[in-house]
């Protein structure tokens, strides 16, 4: 009798040990490469830590003061904001339209779906370097296509001027990411039962009405989550400008993550780099909390209606 009551307990505790073994590798890898270094980053951001001067002493909030006084940071922040906002607006709007096209039943569907995956699968570094050449003032294909279109020679050095360089970077970012966003929206579109559309058609509502009242509510959750992910990725992206403009002309296209990268691998000012990383992290957490809050409010409002 006694042994019977004890046995399951023993067994369960052994199972429990096994469970920790199961999730341990994943947790250890993530803790060692994300959680721990993140904490160290906080600490480093309070140091005056410069490899080139072999300096590693306490600095307090010196790095943060430097950050808010640094004149080049202002350009960086303003372009990061512009890059994120413009890219996101176009990615979301074009992404929804593209998703609707991908959802249409017609013979070109498999072809179109394969094509939609290509920008997502293309390494940013490859398309970035290629587009540095594509936007070249003399031999680039962008000027050449415009020349052929308008019928007279068009020569413009896109990446040498502030406004057009920013435009070009944002343009390529939209090209690279819209199809991926569309695929995620497509996943949501496919969960909307087609009976809803049929019922709406029977009721005599047009395409725009059913888009507003059936499609949009059906994909709103995905739009929210994906919108958040894509926004965070825009804020922390550096490889596109690394490949395409090297942050130039001047620091007109130097995104915050690109700046962080330069401090880490070029100037080797580890303290300052960590400070930028902490600020980037804080901004990302803030955006996450804000957008979660907004989504919750929108969801409850939708329910009440």
């Amino acid at each position, binding site marked *: 009798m006694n042994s019977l009551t004890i046995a399951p307990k023993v067994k369960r505790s052994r199972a*429990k040990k096994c*469970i920790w073994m*199961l*999730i341990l*590798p*994943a*947790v250890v*890898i993530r803790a*060692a*490469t*994300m*959680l721990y*270094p*993140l904490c*160290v*980053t906080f600490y*480093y951001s309070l140091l005056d830590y410069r490899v080139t001067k072999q300096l590693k002493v306490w600095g307090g909030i010196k790095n943060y003061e430097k950050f808010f006084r640094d004149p080049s940071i202002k350009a960086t922040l303003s372009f990061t904001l512009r890059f994120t906002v413009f890219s996101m607006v176009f990615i979301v709007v074009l992404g929804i339209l593209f998703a609707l096209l991908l959802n249409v039943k*017609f013979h*070109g569907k498999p*072809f*179109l*779906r*394969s094509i939609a*995956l*290509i*920008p*997502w*699968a*293309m*390494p940013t*570094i*490859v398309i970035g370097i*290629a587009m540095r*050449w594509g936007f070249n003032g003399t*031999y680039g*294909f962008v000027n*050449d296509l415009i020349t052929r279109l308008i019928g007279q020679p068009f020569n413009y050095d896109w*990446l040498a001027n502030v406004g057009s360089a920013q435009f070009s970077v944002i343009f390529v970012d939209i090209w690279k990411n819209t199809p*991926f966003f569309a*695929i*995620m929206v*497509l*996943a949501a579109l496919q969960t909307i039962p087609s009976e809803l559309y049929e019922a709406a058609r029977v009721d005599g509502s047009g395409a725009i009405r059913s888009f507003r009242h059936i499609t949009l509510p059906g994909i709103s959750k995905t739009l929210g989550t*994906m919108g958040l*992910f894509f926004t*965070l*990725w825009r804020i922390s992206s*550096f490889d596109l400008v690394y*490949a395409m403009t090297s942050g130039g002309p001047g620091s007109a296209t130097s995104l915050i*993550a690109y700046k*962080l*990268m330069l401090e*880490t691998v070029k100037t080797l000012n*580890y303290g300052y*780099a*960590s400070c930028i990383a*902490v600020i*980037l992290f804080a901004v*990302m957490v803030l955006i*996450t909390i804000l957008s979660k809050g907004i989504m919750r409010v929108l969801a409850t409002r939708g329910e009440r209606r």
Partner: protein
Amino acid sequence: MKKKYAYKIGIWLVTVLVAFVIMFPVVWIISSSFTPEDELYTVPVSYLPSTPTLDNYKVMFKIMDVPRMAVNTLLIAIISIVVTIFVAYTAGYGFARVQFRGKETVYSLLTFSAMLPMIITLVPLSRMMLMLKLTDTIPGLSILYISSYIPFTTMIFTNSIHDVPIALDEAAEVDGAGLWRRMFAIILPMLKPVVATITIIIFIWSLNEFMIPLVFSSQKAVPLSLGISMVPREIQLAIPWEKISAMGTLIIAPIILFVTFFQRQIMDGLMAGGVKQ
């Protein structure tokens, strides 16, 4: 009837336009790689080579150790695929099948960490890698790749193991199958499509990775994605397009093949939550 016809034509027109915008730069890279060098530096641009040539590739192979980079890329990809799938599957099984204290917390921490890019931890990471002598080595790079793939793959495995009836585990347990046998001989075979999808997606992710090699490799463990940025340039803004396009084609050719062959699996995987840039 007429309206339907117009609608169909409209759809095809838009499709062709979209396909053109997406494919133009890709086709341009590939065709440039077969164009003789002097033809690339002409105005107007010639999009198709008059006499296709492999010269650009020959030059490329002469100035850079492309085969070695290709081997590095493949090695890292294979290690990442095998280890990630093992780690994420066992973790997913733990999360989906067993109740234990703190599970929710650990799981939500893990999924939250998916949103954090590795770029914010680069400084301490590079110190750690240096201390462990992992900088510029295949295992060193692989562990970082794996780390960045774990959150999403664990989520996918957790969700798909949830969908497998628990009765299967219980039946196997009654038959005397141990935990490992249940996990790898009974449940894992049922998830073959998921494993295939994750394999393909990790392969593409690993070809795409640029930040990790940029920071952590210099000479020995250089993959193709870093290699293309190391092609020597005379001036920053001028690009040695004949070499870059050849190198670019070498990288994107397998990607395009994969995407066309495995379109369905990749789509399924992305839609199941394989969201990582």
